[in-house]
């Protein structure tokens, strides 16, 4: 057990990297080099680029694994390593180094990003085989992996922000990858703009960190955090939460995630399920030294998380697009992680635990959905699926593993992680806990609905569609992820994850829960069973119509419209901004341009009249000469005589 006393806030106090840890920079450098080679090398790399782009993240994964094992070999208190690469920004009092921090938290993220990332690269070799812009796709994927690794390895908020913006860029490029589709281009723009809203929070937080502590380094801030006022800490917490909401698609900045499904499916799996959207959770857990001192900000995190986890779950129930159901479920599951992160030291470790298991099973299911789409001519409407379990046995079996994990079937990874969150939430506040339980029930409902509509029930295929199993380059990653979905719960063995993360996030306080843990577990299983049963009776026992019925309840209609999130945005933000720009444009056109061009136009009009004087007749010029001379003479006479 780590020696830190309960309730004390841990500080970041790394030792300089030596030995195997000096390889840390390579973890980022490998995929970054891949992106550079593929994007700069152009069509010369068309033939072999995707293999290189797949090998490099695998290389990063191997290094991450070696580092992880070396870290496990160290003492508990000695598991924070930093590597100074070079001086990055030195202006006045601002001194930011390009420093990397490797500790238990980043080590887990490294394994998740490079591990799941590599699997998705392998899968993409099959999925994108016939895309004419395949090289570019792999270049962007590598860029994303490099940026995400920068995000989790940076030792200061500015470095984190660099990676933060990097993943935002990669996400934009990949959502809009099929740029010939206007919907994809619009979705990419939407994601980018909404993310900017969150980035305002991030950049303000960084500035406030610098003003308050004179540094953006985790080491400095965590040591000095106790000295700042409560108000400052609360503001910092809220600003970081705003940033996290943007990146993690939490309410009220959730609207971009469902549209982001316009991107190729591996992108949805890698970026919009397993890694990038979890950056917000990472940010909050990493900033535990801020949130532990800002209880109000923690409350805000919990409120946002609870709203989002129900919001996403309701959307998941109503959508017919398989990827959008999964996207809604991603929102909901990240809500669970945020909820745990908002509960302080009691929840941080479980937030990361759920993040890891979710990374496995959600990547598994997204790739499974991609495999289904691959066999169904890229149709995403579940109402056109049905009965696929016999034709796609591997996809079906691996997807089932993910399904059992996400609903929390006892023994599967999601069961352990979600159960822990519900347990912690119930111990903290029974309303929050009940909402989390309810969310678990709804999860059971919509995931069962997805399973039934896709793999069971009668065939509802479009004409000319011949479903077939995907090639093994796609199914092997699915099998690996399915195994991880099943076994991800092992992290919890012997309280490993809590104790492993304790040096970073603090020890989990030992309190006697109001309801015994076993009771909570049973309750959760019963609630999920009710959800599954409801789906069975409402969908499995009836015929599924091929087109979505229109005479549905208000709730379903609202769910199909994503609970009117887009409409609210339109009314509150988009339309007022449009009107504002139209107004400014009018002012610019009529007031500013009018003044500036009005003068020359008036002069021009006068000149049009005055130029008639130049009639080309010598006589008239001579006459005006004479008149002028006369006037001069008369004037002289008048002056002299006066």
């Amino acid at each position: 057990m780590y020696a830190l006393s309960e309730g004390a806030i841990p500080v970041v106090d790394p030792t300089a990297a030596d030995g195997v840890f000096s390889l840390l920079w390579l973890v980022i450098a490998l995929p970054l080099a891949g992106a550079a080679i593929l994007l700069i090398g152009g069509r010369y790399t068309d033939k072999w680029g995707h293999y290189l782009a797949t090998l490099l993240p695998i290389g990063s994964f191997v290094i991450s694994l070696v580092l992880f094992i070396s870290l496990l070999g160290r003492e508990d208190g000695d598991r924070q390593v930093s590597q100074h690469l070079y001086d990055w920004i030195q202006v006045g009092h601002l001194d930011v180094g390009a420093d990397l921090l490797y500790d238990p938290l980043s080590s887990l993220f490294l394994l998740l990003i490079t591990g799941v990332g590599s699997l998705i690269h392998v899968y993409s070799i099959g999925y994108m085989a016939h895309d004419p812009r395949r090289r570019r796709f792999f270049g962007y994927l590598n860029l994303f992996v490099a940026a995400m690794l920068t995000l989790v390895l940076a030792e200061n908020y500015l470095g984190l922000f660099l990676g933060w913006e990097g993943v935002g860029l990669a996400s934009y490029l990949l959502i809009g990858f099929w740029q010939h589709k206007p919907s994809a281009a619009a979705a990419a723009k939407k994601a980018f703009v909404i993310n900017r809203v969150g980035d305002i929070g991030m950049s303000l937080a960084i500035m406030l960190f610098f003003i308050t502590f004179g540094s953006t380094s985790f080491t400095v801030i965590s040591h000095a955090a106790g000295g700042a006022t409560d108000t400052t800490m609360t503001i910092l917490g809220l600003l970081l939460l705003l940033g996290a909401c943007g990146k993690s698609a939490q309410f009220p900045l959730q609207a971009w995630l469902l549209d982001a499904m316009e991107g190729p499916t591996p992108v949805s799996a890698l970026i919009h399920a397993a890694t990038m959207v979890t950056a917000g959770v990472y940010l909050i857990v990493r900033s535990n030294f801020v949130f532990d001192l800002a209880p109000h900000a923690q409350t805000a995190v919990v409120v946002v998380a609870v709203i989002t986890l129900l919001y996403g779950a309701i959307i998941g129930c109503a959508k017919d697009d398989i990827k959008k159901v999964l996207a809604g479920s991603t929102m909901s599951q990240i809500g669970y992680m945020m909820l745990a992160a908002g509960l302080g030291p009691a929840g941080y470790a479980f937030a990361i635990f759920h993040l890891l298991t979710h990374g496995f099973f959600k990547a598994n299911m997204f790739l499974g959905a991609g495999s289904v789409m691959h066999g169904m001519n890229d149709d995403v409407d579940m109402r056109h699926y049905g009965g696929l379990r016999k034709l796609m046995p591997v996809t079906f079996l691996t997807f089932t593993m993910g399904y059992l994990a996400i609903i929390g079937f006892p023994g599967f990874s999601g069961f352990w992680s979600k159960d822990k969150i519900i347990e912690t939430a119930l111990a903290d506040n029974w309303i929050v806990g009940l909402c989390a339980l309810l969310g678990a029930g709804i999860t059971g409902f919509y995931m069962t609905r997805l399973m039934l509509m896709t793999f069971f029930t009668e065939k509802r295929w479009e004409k000319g569609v011949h479903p077939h199993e995907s090639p093994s380059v796609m199914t092997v990653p699915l099998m690996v992820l399915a195994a991880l979905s099943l076994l991800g719960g092992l992290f919890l063995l012997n309280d490993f994850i809590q104790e492993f993360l304790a040096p970073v996030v603090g020890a989990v306080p030992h309190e006697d829960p109001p309801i015994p843990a076993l009771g909570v577990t049973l309750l959760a299983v019963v609630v999920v069973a009710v959800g599954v049963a409801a789906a069975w009776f409402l969908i499995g026992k009836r015929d599924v119509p091929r087109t979505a019925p229109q005479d549905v309840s208000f709730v379903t209609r609202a769910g199909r419209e994503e609970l009117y999130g887009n409409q609210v945005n339109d009314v509150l933000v988009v339309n007022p901004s449009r009107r504002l720009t139209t107004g400014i444009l009018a002012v610019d056109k009529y007031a500013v341009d009018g003044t500036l061009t009005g003068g020359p136009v008036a002069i021009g009009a006068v000149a049009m009249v005055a130029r008639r004087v130049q009639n080309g007749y010598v006589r008239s010029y001579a006459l005006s000469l004479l008149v002028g001379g006369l006037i001069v003479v008369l004037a002289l006479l008048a002056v002299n005589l006066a």
Partner: protein
Amino acid sequence: MSVTPYIVLSAILFTIGCVGVLTRRNAIVVFMCVELMLNASNLALVAFARQHGDLDGQIAAFFVMVVAAAEVVVGLAIIMTIFRTRRSASVDDASLLKY
């Protein structure tokens, strides 16, 4: 000796030249009228020099003669060119350079 008659003659010549420039269309005639005005002013200059008893006005008159000679050379050449291209020496026909 009074210079008044010379001044009067100068004024009359100047007026004749002036009216000629303004009313005649033949470029040669207009040109001759300009010469007439120059010579009228020469006469006035010489007359006033006589009255003042110094040489300033006479020197000025010489300058005017030199300028007039140069002007005749250039002016006649222009008129010749216009006549050759347009078959007309009327100043009203040469009115292309306008608004």
